[in-house]
């Protein structure tokens, strides 16, 4: 018996190397490609596809964590139709989305234009404007809870300094939605940076040509910047809508859905249904509902707004 066959593991290893060496260059590259994407594929299957499939299975079942899931047919779906709390959470989410997304886009676009200017220390301003978007969600929630503090919050301090009333931002159902919109708009740094990249990609020659033709600042914005930026605006719009339907951390930590369900966002309702009410089957239905809403919304956005987007190189 030779030395290298005495150790089966080593022999196995050698066998693998031998098999690898027999592959053609093309096969080796293909294999390595799969090896490199394997972590993503595994993660995708384990943490996305798997749970989505389980959620699909659970939609037809009643499961409270304690006993085995019990088949209930379409009961979870029919429950959805007469659920007043779901109706409220959808209303809250849609109102928030309709207000915060356009506002966030305008604000991010405005900021991007500001920091697109060329002057000293511009990098510092860009960093300052971008910083809020990388503040961790929990820290962000705690920070804003203090800023919105009725008695000692900075926002009420400023309002009262101008003679305004003391607003119960987080206690008054009529004001709390606006508080969440402000909180969200504050974190537009990500969209702003994408807008900035888009602005810097517009060839200067277009502006020069427009200027020669007598276009003023406003006309250059309307007829050069906006059309050239339309793919970026479209991208931020789609992402903005998707994000606006997934508000959770701030609603959980700042108001826990209150006051009087005024911030009961859909994802918070799903989470409570699953982990507080122990209705995993119904929560799965609500999760698929969220997916369906986002899919339909994206379809309409692509169908009716996407067709108006100008692509310089549509074939790319």
């Amino acid at each position, binding site marked *: 018996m030779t030395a290298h066959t005495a150790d089966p593991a080593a022999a196995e290893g050698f066998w693998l190397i031998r098999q690898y060496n027999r592959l053609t260059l093309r096969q080796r590259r293909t294999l390595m490609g799969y090896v490199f994407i394997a972590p993503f594929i595994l993660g995708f299957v384990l943490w996305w596809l798997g749970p989505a499939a389980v959620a699909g299975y659970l939609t037809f079942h009643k499961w409270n964590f304690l006993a085995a899931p019990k088949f209930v047919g379409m009961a979870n779906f029919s429950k959805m139709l007469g659920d007043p709390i779901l109706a409220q959470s959808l209303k809250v989410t849609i109102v928030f989305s309709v207000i915060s997304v356009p506002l966030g886009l305008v604000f991010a676009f405005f900021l991007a234009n500001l920091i697109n200017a060329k002057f000293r220390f511009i990098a510092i301003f860009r960093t300052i404007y971008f910083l809020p978007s990388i503040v961790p969600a929990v820290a962000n929630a705690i920070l804003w809870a203090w800023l919105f503090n009725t008695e000692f919050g900075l926002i009420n301090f400023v309002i009262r300094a101008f003679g305004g009333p003391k607003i119960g931002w*987080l206690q008054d159902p009529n004001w709390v939605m606006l508080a969440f919109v402000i909180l969200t708009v504050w974190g537009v740094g990500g969209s702003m940076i994408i807008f900035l990249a888009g602005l810097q990609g517009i060839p200067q020659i277009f502006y020069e040509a427009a200027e020669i033709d007598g276009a003023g600042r406003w006309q250059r914005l309307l007829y050069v910047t906006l059309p050239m930026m339309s793919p970026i605006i479209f991208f931020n719009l789609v992402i903005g809508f998707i994000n606006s339907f997934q508000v959770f951390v701030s609603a959980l930590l700042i108001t826990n859905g209150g006051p009087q369900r005024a911030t009961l966002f859909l994802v918070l309702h799903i989470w409570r249904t699953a982990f507080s009410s122990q209705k995993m089957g119904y929560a799965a239905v609500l999760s698929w509902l969220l997916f369906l809403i986002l899919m339909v919304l994206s379809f309409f956005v692509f169908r009716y707004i996407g067709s108006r987007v100008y692509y310089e190189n549509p074939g790319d």
Partner: protein
Amino acid sequence: MSISRREFLKLTGGSATAAAMLAQLGYLPPALAQDVTNITFGGWGGVAEDEGVKSAIEVFEAENEDIDVEWLHTPSAGDYGRVLLSSIAAGTAPDTGFILSDNYETLAVGGALMDITDLVKNDPLLGQPGYFLEPQEANRCEVNGRWYGIGSTWVAHHFYYNAEMFEAEGITPPGFQDDEIWEWEEFLEICKVFTKDSAGRHPGDAGFDSEDIVQWAVDWPFWWMPLGLAAHANGGEFLTEDGLIGLDSPEAMEGLQRITDLVYAHHVAPRSAALASLGMNNVQMVDSGRLAMAVDGSWALSWMNPSLMNVAMGTGALPKMQQPASIMQAHFHSVLAGTDHPEEAWRWVRFLATPFYQEHFCKIGLWIPNQTAMLTEEGLKGWIREGIHPPNYSQFATDYLPKHGVAVAIPPGYIEAANDYINPAFEGLANGERAEDIMPDAVRGANEVLMAAKEDM
């Protein structure tokens, strides 16, 4: 045969390592392996609870050398509840654990908790008649006549007051004896004395500015325990005998309205919805003289006690509307049904229901005993501590709670009913809405959830 020193070390070291590995894997016969059973204990709590449990484990393990208890600590009770549910679903639940009172019946009926009825009844100590404060203990522990856990303690609401403010006004503070408990109207009059705007005017005085109050009489929070007790104090019920919400009865709604009126009609309490936004908690408000009386749970004594306050403070019973009442509850200690070591798990849960463990937390003001032996003159010496407990505090445990404490058994489905209907209604009360306008709908919705949960079980 002679062996070298190096060979000897190799042999002995190798043998020890192999024995340790085999013992770990359970391959050694009991006579060779140290026969210790490991059980896990899940729970939540702050630093005080964490340290208390750890020291209890040390004592228990010293008395029970065949059992090792591993403490699985989660800081927040809410997070712990979700962790426990997930671990039950995954088949990795702890052997023993804290069980939230609002989920106890759900878990018991769902088969997640071990039936310990016979163990409790046949236990030479715990099975003694009158060992626990009854009927409150049986009321909360029994689910369909069976015990699935033992109450850890009792907690209930009472007043914490700034004694110096009472002395300055010449008002006798409330106590825990029946003849020391205020009538509601008497309480309102006293509240008016303590409440002042920045010009020193009281509610009812000409020119009193309710938007410019600098000193409040009372803070009465708007969540289920302090509001539920108001329903009982006014002759209503928070939960009916059928396990439904009873906050839509005329008596209960009047009780709730009285609390809302403290803020919006009498202007003697701060808007509790904005309590957090006052920038001070109730302790700081009492300590700074901005608040005469705080309604809070008995657990708050562990941080709102004479040794930690800058002012002289005291405790007393809440005023009666129709009758004195305070809701009593606390978490349970249970053996999880999936445990592989039911005997050892029971021995640990049993230990938690003995005076040693409870005394530890009672001494620091966090708990009130549920064991009658700790309520005797001798028993009180074991946990009443000067500097922590005001002089009359033992009467809360010995007189007030046995007579006026209302132990609630929280039914399955309550968490959903509360999240979806009752808590939003309480927020409405805190925002000044009238009880009769919002409670009937909220209770109807909540009770539909509770009835559906009952049918599911």
